[in-house]
């Protein structure tokens, strides 16, 4: 029945295509459909083109060194610390967000009563809708004091672990706080995707495992999680893409320093490419510094594009496998 009607539709369409107005229509629509490609190519070309002078003056050291000194001639600038900082913040965010989001999704799909899980779904949607500038405002005034207290305790009792070292005594503007804010932005994304794939676990598999006497843990371990693994990984990558490009919320809670903070996550100061762009843009000294910022934007674009493309490939491939 369905196949029959589709065949008819295609026949009717091809019969109608001979009309001239239709060819114009089809071409217009097809042209519009490739706007997204045009924009992506435009971004890559324009920013890449602007990045050329930056590369000519800086050479490869633009992405292998760290520093931002525009008073020298030529300016000595390197964004390695910023690129690394973006990745570090996103990693801290993932360490917090992934367990929280996956457990939250497990709770919503397998544990909570349907009504509660509907309420939670709405709350998570609301969480995803909070603009990042508001999250930044909240983090600056509400999260900062609490996080400071937590970090002081971490340092006091676990300070012997290298990552919890803090020599400056300043516990604000740390990568940990920025990563925590990123985690809050990633939790709704990862939860939504994970809930979706977990709730699509075939009920006959869940029921069968229950009938075989599986406990919740065994069912998750051998049925639900392997079944949804691709989707969960894809959701994590989507969240990662969002975290790498996040600008404003990080701007408020991270103290930007032009040196590489490798692993001191509760030491004040860190880096982030997106935040670098916004914070330098306000006091940009001339066209040559603007070009350097555009070059930094180019690398941010490439980095997020790669992460997102991988994420979407993973998500779409699991979608196909599950059918």
């Amino acid at each position: 029945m369905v196949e029959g009607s589709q065949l008819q539709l295609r026949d009717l369409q091809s019969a109608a295509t001979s009309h001239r107005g239709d060819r114009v229509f089809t071409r217009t629509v097809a042209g519009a459909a490739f706007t997204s490609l045009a924009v992506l190519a435009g971004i890559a070309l324009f920013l890449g083109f602007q990045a050329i002078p930056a590369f000519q003056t800086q050479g490869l050291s633009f992405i292998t060194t760290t520093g931002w000194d525009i008073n020298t001639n030529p300016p000595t600038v390197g964004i390695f610390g910023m690129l690394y900082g973006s990745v570090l913040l996103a990693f801290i965010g993932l360490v917090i967000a992934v367990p929280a989001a996956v457990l939250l999704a497990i709770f919503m799909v397998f544990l909570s009563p349907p009504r509660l899980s509907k309420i939670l779904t709405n709350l998570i949607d609301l969480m995803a809708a909070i603009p990042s500038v508001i999250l930044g405002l909240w983090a600056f005034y509400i999260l900062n004091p609490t996080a400071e207290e937590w970090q002081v305790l971490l340092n006091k009792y676990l300070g012997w672990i290298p990552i919890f070292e803090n020599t400056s005594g300043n516990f604000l503007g740390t990568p940990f706080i920025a990563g925590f804010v990123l985690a809050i932005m990633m939790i709704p994304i990862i939860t939504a995707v994970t809930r979706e794939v977990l709730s699509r676990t075939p009920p006959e598999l869940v029921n069968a495992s229950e009938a075989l006497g599986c406990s919740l843990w065994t069912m998750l371990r051998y049925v639900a999680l392997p079944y949804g693994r691709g989707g969960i990984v894809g959701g994590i990558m989507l969240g990662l893409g969002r975290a790498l490009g996040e600008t404003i919320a990080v701007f408020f809670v991270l103290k930007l320093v032009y040196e590489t903070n490798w692993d001191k996550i509760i030491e004040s100061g860190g880096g982030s490419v997106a935040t670098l762009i916004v914070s330098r843009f306000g006091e940009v000294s001339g066209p040559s510094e603007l070009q350097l910022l555009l070059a930094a934007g180019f690398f941010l674009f490439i980095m997020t594009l790669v992460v997102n493309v991988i994420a979407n490939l993973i998500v779409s491939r699991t979608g196909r496998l599950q059918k």
Partner: protein
Amino acid sequence: MSTSTFDPAALEQLQQQKSGRPWRKKPTRFTASVALAVVIPALLVAALFLTSDIPVPILLVVIYLPLQLIASGIAAWATKGTRGIADSVIIVNAIGASLFSVVVLVSVIGSLVVRGLRALSPHFLFQNSVYISPSTPLDYGGIGHSLVGTLLIVFIASLISVPIGIATAVYITEVRGRAVPYVRFFVQAMSGVPSVVAGLFILTIVVATGAFNQSAFAGGLAYAILMLPTVARTAEEVLKLVPDDLRTGALALGSTRARTVLRVVIPAARTGIITAVILGVARVIGETAPLLLAAGNNDQTVVNPFGSPISSVPTYIFNNVALPYPDAVARAWGSALVLIILVAILFTLARVLGRGRVGR
């Protein structure tokens, strides 16, 4: 063996269990041990909180969580045996993760309401900030100029991205050309463009080339880049729900393909397409970074989309957050409250409209 012995009590028990799932029935012992496992750690920690001065984070992480895990582990072991222990660990952590998210959300919304209400007043919504310095008391000035700016920018972004987004969706669902997988791939990839990169891109082609200033138009272009993928993907989902019978019917009556799409398919999906537009607007309305770069800032009310830099609600918040004046900070909280109310209204509209969209 007396397999056929009739036992009325057993039959009654069976009949009682007939509805529902008998294996889901919780014995009293189970309920009691779960209740004990919840109450005992909570009471212990509450007592410690009142009597000692151990810091709250340590109390929660080092004392309460392990205690709760052990207590529920024992309860699970007592009712279900060893296999129950892993389950209890998952359940405790899952409830903990849910509580964590809810606490964060309540904290964000609660602080917005508590701190934002102080600044809210009729003149806060209508006045602009021309004669306002950060230290001016809250009796004067407002975000009228930013609201006008945000509306103008979002309107321009919609003018650009809605037709293109719908056309993209039409290409995927109606034209069904060979390039459909690629188009979808590019739309997906575009949805991952960081907002600050969209702002930089518009800055280079529009502002830096000298074609326009920082303006509502440039800001609208940057917003359009961020809005387009949301509109296209939602519109695609909606157009897919239009039954093929409508298309075949229109074509069979001699309608051209263009006419079929424009006069039959899109009107049939009208409410859904409005939902797509609303979701697109809600996606961008709080974005700050692109406007900082492409639209700039202004204390005056600007209605000319090309002439001069323009204020918007997100950039207004951005500029007031970290100022050392309590009233400026109160203005930031107030406008954040206005912004989140706008977003909430948009999402509620989308939900209400989205409910009746199938098969109309």
